[in-house]
């Protein structure tokens, strides 16, 4: 340990460090997020009385920043390849467009509830024919369909409550 002027470069020591103190999970908006640590590093062999030359020294943070940005970008693209629980499609080859199909589709969606506990169903964009077809099916639901819908709402309400409970802000 050498103590002539301090123990580390004043430039390095002025770089602020902000520790993440709240674990590796958080929720932003409606979705839980799992944080994964990403790190980049550089190697340098110290010699007696010799530091890092000016150009190389100022190039190090640039290089590390680029490496980190690349890693982050890679993760972003990996993430967006996964289907989101907020959108979906229904195609004709999945069967007739009726309430049963709609309920089965809703099973994979994230459903939120308003302050009165009413489900906020997602919006659908349909052709006129398809709209008429599903409205026809929904206008006279069978008791089993009503039962399945009630079970779906109860399940989605439980999931919503769990999400809200673990939701917290990240520093």
């Amino acid at each position, binding site marked *: 340990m050498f103590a002539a*002027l301090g*123990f580390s470069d*004043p430039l390095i020591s002025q770089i602020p460090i902000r520790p993440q103190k709240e674990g590796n999970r958080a929720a932003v908006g409606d979705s839980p997020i799992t944080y994964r640590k990403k790190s980049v590093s550089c190697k340098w062999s*110290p010699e007696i*009385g*010799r530091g890092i030359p000016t150009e190389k020294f100022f190039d*190090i943070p640039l290089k590390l920043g680029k490496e980190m940005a690349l890693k982050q970008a890679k993760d972003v693209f990996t993430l967006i390849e996964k289907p989101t629980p907020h959108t979906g499609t229904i195609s004709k080859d999945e069967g007739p467009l009726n309430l049963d199909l709609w309920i089965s589709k809703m099973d994979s969606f994230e459903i939120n509830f308003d302050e009165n506990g009413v489900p906020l169903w997602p919006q659908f964009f349909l052709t006129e024919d398809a709209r008429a077809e599903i409205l026809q099916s929904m206008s006279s639901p069978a008791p089993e369909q009503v039962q399945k819908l009630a079970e779906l709402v109860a399940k989605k309400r439980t999931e919503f409550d769990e999400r809200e409970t673990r939701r917290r802000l990240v520093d």
Partner: protein
Amino acid sequence: MKERLVDDWLTRINERGYQTAFGQVLAAQGFSILRIGHSAYEHGKDVLAVAPNGEIHCYQLKDGDIDIGAFEHDFGQISALVQARPSHPSLPADYIYRPFLVTNGLFTDPALDRILHHNLGWEKLGFSRLELHDGRWLHRHFTDLSLDFWPTSPPDVRQFRRLYLVDGRGDLDSETFARFMGSLLPPDLSRRELERHAAAVNIFASYILGEFYRQNDHWSVFRAWTMTAAAIACASERSGGANDAVNASFTLARDAAREALGALAAECQDENAFKPTHLEWDEYTRVRNAVAMGAWAAWCLLYPEDRGKARACISMLERFVRDGRLGFWGESCLPFVCALSWLAEREGEVGQAKRLWEGWLQAIVSQQQRQSPNPLPDAYTSAEDALLKIADSLSDNEPKRRVATSSYSLLPLVLLLVNRNYKSELETNWKAISQVTLTVFKPDDKAGYLEWRCAKRIGDGSIFQATAIMEGIGRVSFVAQDGQTSVCPPIRLAISPDVRARVFAPSDLEYSWLARCRLQTASR
């Protein structure tokens, strides 16, 4: 709060960290301190003091609680403390000797019982009994000495808090430290008041430096004690002269600075100490090399009998000069250049010293011209500030504006070169030299040289008279801003054998110039 802070400091400090404060306690009780410090020849006696009644007291300082294990571990030293009488040129032929074991912690009951039994044996053999001072004793005496001087006004409290709450790793705030010393040593103190204030200054400096001692930041410790000694000397000068008690406080601070310088010099002997431990900008490393080498050289100049360390220092200097590993950041590094050059000359490396002088001269005459676009940082800019300016300038692509520039170090540098009869080097550069404006620091009173910030002063701008040196190197004159020509202090240039012998040794004149330059740096 004050007691708790002293308690906190005492529990964290090591023995070196409280030794000066302990010496101050003894001095305040009328003791005369003959030696304080650690060496291979101390034989268990870290502090050697003469009591007011003429008894000789020796103290071995320890840190932490002392239990049976710690007592047995240090028993060799403790036996030497009790059984070997001290030797010092100032001691009388016959005296009563009393050994003391001191710690900032506590003695456990089994350890006390062991010491009691050893004392019975030692007394039967005719030795003095070992006496003890523990942390409670130290706490009481440190508190007594500093009680009346604790900062009370919010700015002073803030200053003290800022100085105390540090990492102790190169983060001594010299400006704040100097202001705090100034608040403890106000002007117009009577001699009697000065005694108490000077004692308190040493106690507070010990409090502030606790963390620096713990981290072995010898450079910060050296700087702080040097400033403390200068503050005491300044207050003493202004109060109309010192008495024994004030002299004792000054000596304690000065010796603490000297001990820290020695510790830094010892650290420098391991070449790996110069190896950066973290990612480090090379300019910073080069500047640190220059500071450390300068401090090491200064220590070698203070202790010329240790030739081994001096040769090691010169060897490292040659290596660093050859590899371009020394970074001289601005005008405030003149003392470091002087220390290195003087040591090189003393060790017979005249060529090496000449390279340093010439290199410094070239830097001054090329960058300190009156309207220089890129002047060296002035004598008031610290090494770290100079480095930060360089870092800022790397991203600044704007064309540099010419600024009014003057040099603080050119005049002493020319005198140094004249004293060495480097006539041809001066003649070659004389045109450029004569175009540099010189600044000479002149405080209103001589105590101003000892101030960190000297408010009552003038900066005298002068230039060398271009023709004088061309006519004869023995007559150096310079022209002040008001057009008045003056001749520099007389410089011996006669080539008689005795003077020739002096040419390559630092003269009194040079030392006085060094002192002034160092104080210029200190007196902002």
